[in-house]
């Protein structure tokens, strides 16, 4: 286990860690209201890749973001110095601050933390400059290669833009980082931080970036967007990636209350494990053990029983063995409840994009708790015979108090995050309609 207990599980305790602002940025829409409406309607953002010519590339389908005005959030002087992934992070953070009604000027700069997660970094930027190196020589390489391509770039640009001088970091551990970032934020809040900018974005739609993950054999090479990614599906062909993500403001319940803002949700518990080669064991019980252990520990830290879980946001790798391991982990950790609790994979609509889709799942889970609706998994076709779960495929109203979000990363990372509805939840429309009271 990597973590110590988080405060929480009791809603509005002063030191409970709460999400006060959130902003999805996705292929089906950006901002909480737009994203949620598209998600519950079953909209899919998967399409043929247009960001580069896939003629000679095995991956054909992804979730591309088209409707975001990046120029509005990132002027051209910064645009030439940043990868698209960082620009997504800057744009999403602007939306998250507005949603959380946060005026960072009112915070002590040393009390503002920036914690992002990244799986792909600035690979598109890097590919462009490496191409310049080999075709035109070293003098053609942009000086900004030195700050744009590496994993910490988004955290760095966020802290520069917002003048934060508190704890900074980036978690690089595939999908799990998108959840572990919240645990890191909770640690920061326990050690003096007042507010953390938290989340993850990705922009891996370049040949080099995708080549980095091709070796896993898990990226779908199917060419039909309607069937390329079918988590828990019979004969699933792997996962489809995408671009975008989600950013959040996270603070203590007392801080949120003092600002007069109602929290979206409580970050009640978290645990992470690493199981190395056992992650892909042919024996599903062995492959599931690490994830089950993370779920059990996260629930214990939230003070929640397995039966308290009202909805599961699954990793949904879309690969037979990993899907079966996840189903088995739910059974091991939740018992019979694991077969009947609603399970959903919203990333079927927006891509399974390393750290960013785990962060986006947090946004989806928070919105599910607010709206009391389980968002659907945008897939068709029969489930795998071993998928003994209640996979939600059309939006389903439900009484939701506790959500479990899961993420797994290449090579053995497992992470489980428990979110709970605050005891006095915010009205579902207040934040969107009234960003600047």
């Amino acid at each position, binding site marked *: 286990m990597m973590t110590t207990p988080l405060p929480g599980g009791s809603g509005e305790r002063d030191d409970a860690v709460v999400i006060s602002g959130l902003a999805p940025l996705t292929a089906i829409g950006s901002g909480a209201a737009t994203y949620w409406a598209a998600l519950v309607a079953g909209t899919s953002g998967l399409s043929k890749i247009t960001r580069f010519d896939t003629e000679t590339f095995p991956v054909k389908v992804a979730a591309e973001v088209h409707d975001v005005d990046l120029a509005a959030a990132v002027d051209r*002087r910064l645009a030439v110095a940043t990868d698209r992934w960082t620009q997504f992070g800057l744009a999403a953070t602007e939306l998250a601050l507005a949603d959380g009604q946060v005026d960072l000027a009112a915070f002590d700069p040393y009390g503002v933390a920036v914690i992002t997660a990244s799986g792909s970094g600035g690979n598109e930027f890097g590919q462009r400059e490496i191409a310049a190196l080999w075709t035109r020589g070293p003098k053609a390489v942009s000086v900004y290669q030195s700050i744009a391509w590496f994993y910490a770039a988004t955290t760095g640009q966020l802290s520069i833009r917002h003048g934060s001088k508190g704890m900074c970091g980036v978690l690089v551990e595939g999908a799990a980082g998108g959840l572990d970032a919240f645990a890191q934020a909770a640690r920061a809040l326990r050690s003096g931080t007042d507010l953390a900018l938290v989340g993850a974005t990705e922009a891996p739609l370049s040949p080099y970036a995708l080549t980095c993950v091709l070796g896993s054999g898990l990226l779908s090479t199917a060419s039909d967007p309607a069937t390329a990614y079918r988590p828990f599906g019979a004969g699933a062909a792997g996962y489809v990636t995408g671009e975008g993500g989600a950013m959040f403001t996270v603070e203590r319940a007392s801080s949120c209350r003092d600002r007069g803002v109602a929290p979206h949700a409580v970050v009640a518990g978290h645990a992470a494990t690493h199981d190395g080669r056992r992650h892909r064991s042919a024996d599903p019980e062995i492959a599931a053990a690490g994830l089950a252990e993370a779920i059990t520990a996260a629930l214990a830290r939230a003070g929640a029983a397995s039966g308290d879980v009202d909805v599961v946001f699954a990793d949904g790798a879309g690969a037979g063995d990993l899907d079966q391991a996840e189903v088995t982990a739910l059974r091991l950790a939740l018992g019979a409840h694991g077969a009947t609790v609603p399970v959903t994979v919203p990333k079927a609509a927006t891509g399974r994009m390393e750290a960013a889709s785990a962060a986006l799942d947090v946004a989806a889970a928070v919105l599910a708790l607010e709206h009391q609706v389980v968002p659907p998994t945008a897939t068709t076709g029969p489930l795998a015979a071993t998928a003994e779960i209640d996979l939600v495929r059309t939006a389903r109203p439900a009484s939701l108090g506790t959500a479990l979000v899961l993420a797994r990363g290449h090579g053995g990372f497992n992470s489980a995050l428990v979110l709970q509805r605050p005891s006095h939840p915010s009205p579902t429309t207040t934040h969107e309609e009234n960003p600047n009271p």
Partner: protein
Amino acid sequence: MNESTLLAALVAGLEAVGVDGAAAVLAERPGVTFADLDVDSLGVIEIAARIEDECGIAVPDADLDDLDSPAAVLDHLLAVAAPVELAGAS
């Protein structure tokens, strides 16, 4: 190499770091500094690299420390280019 060639190289460098309409900016605000334009030290190095691309004159990073405005860079280029011109003419 005449002043307009060097000015064009400087403009190309400014455009490369995201200063839109650089030619007009320099015409309207001849005393503008890199700080005024929100161009940081990395940006100045990038500008120097593009200038070298355009006109073949390299400005060492160490010399850039003292050049805090486009006008100062242009003066530097003119000073460097002049002996080159003389050498070429002889």
